[in-house]
């Protein structure tokens, strides 16, 4: 009897505790991350990013510079568990959607950051790319890498 209950605790109790802990840490980290992203996005509001391929004619542009930014964001245990449940019944996996959003927005913020460091204030031909990264050996862990890259120019005032 005692042995059985110990086994029960090990098989269900430990994962349950992990899920609960991960739920709180995961959502706390996510909220803080979103706040940080929004703050940075507001700071970088003056750096414009476009997905256009042609350089606008009425802009006097200086030398181009390739800029890129990337972020690797990991899931937490709760997200993984929730996604596993979703996998049974199908449908949108909301917990993973926010993961990709965070990674992508962070990547764009870092790209703009690099553009500003090089004195640019406009980024053209922005491309977004996502890669999946395996971290663990046997039990595959999930993390996503988002990358944003584009060509930064400095828009001189006299040209417009």
């Amino acid at each position: 009897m005692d042995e059985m209950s110990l086994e029960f605790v090990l098989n269900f109790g430990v994962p349950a505790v992990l899920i609960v802990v991960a739920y709180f840490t995961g959502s706390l980290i996510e909220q803080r991350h979103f706040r940080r992203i929004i703050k940075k996005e507001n700071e970088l509001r003056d750096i414009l990013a476009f997905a256009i391929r042609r350089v606008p004619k009425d802009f006097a542009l200086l030398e181009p510079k390739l800029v890129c930014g990337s972020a690797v964001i990991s899931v937490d245990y709760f997200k993984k568990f929730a996604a596993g449940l979703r996998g049974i019944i199908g449908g949108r996996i909301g917990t993973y959607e926010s993961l990709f959003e965070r990674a992508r927005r962070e990547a764009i913020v870092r790209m703009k950051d690099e553009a500003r460091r090089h004195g640019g204030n406009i980024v053209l031909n922005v491309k977004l790319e996502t890669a999946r990264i395996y971290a663990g050996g046997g039990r595959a862990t999930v993390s996503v890498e988002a990358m944003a890259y584009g060509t930064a120019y400095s828009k001189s005032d006299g040209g417009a």
Partner: protein
Amino acid sequence: MIVSNMEEIPGKRVVQHLGVVQGSTVQAKNVFRDIGASLKNLVGGELKSYTDLMNEARQEALDRMKQEAEALGANAILNVRFATSTITQGAAELLAYGTAVVVEESTIG
């Protein structure tokens, strides 16, 4: 060396195309970084060490591409693209490629 992912450079014109140049690097993860990563997989958050690792690898791929272009006598690389592929668990290939060209100042517009 001008590196751009656009097809043209304002104020300059392409006088010679030298073909596709590429640079790639295969990057393996680090066991010690992995310990931190598996902990992060429990609580969530950014894997800073992985971000740095990927950035280093991407810079290396870009540098190799630039070297190849320099060897061809180019002074600019246009239409640069990045590609990432996972080879096995824990190793990724990062590729940067573009078109090596010779550009010169254009007098018209």
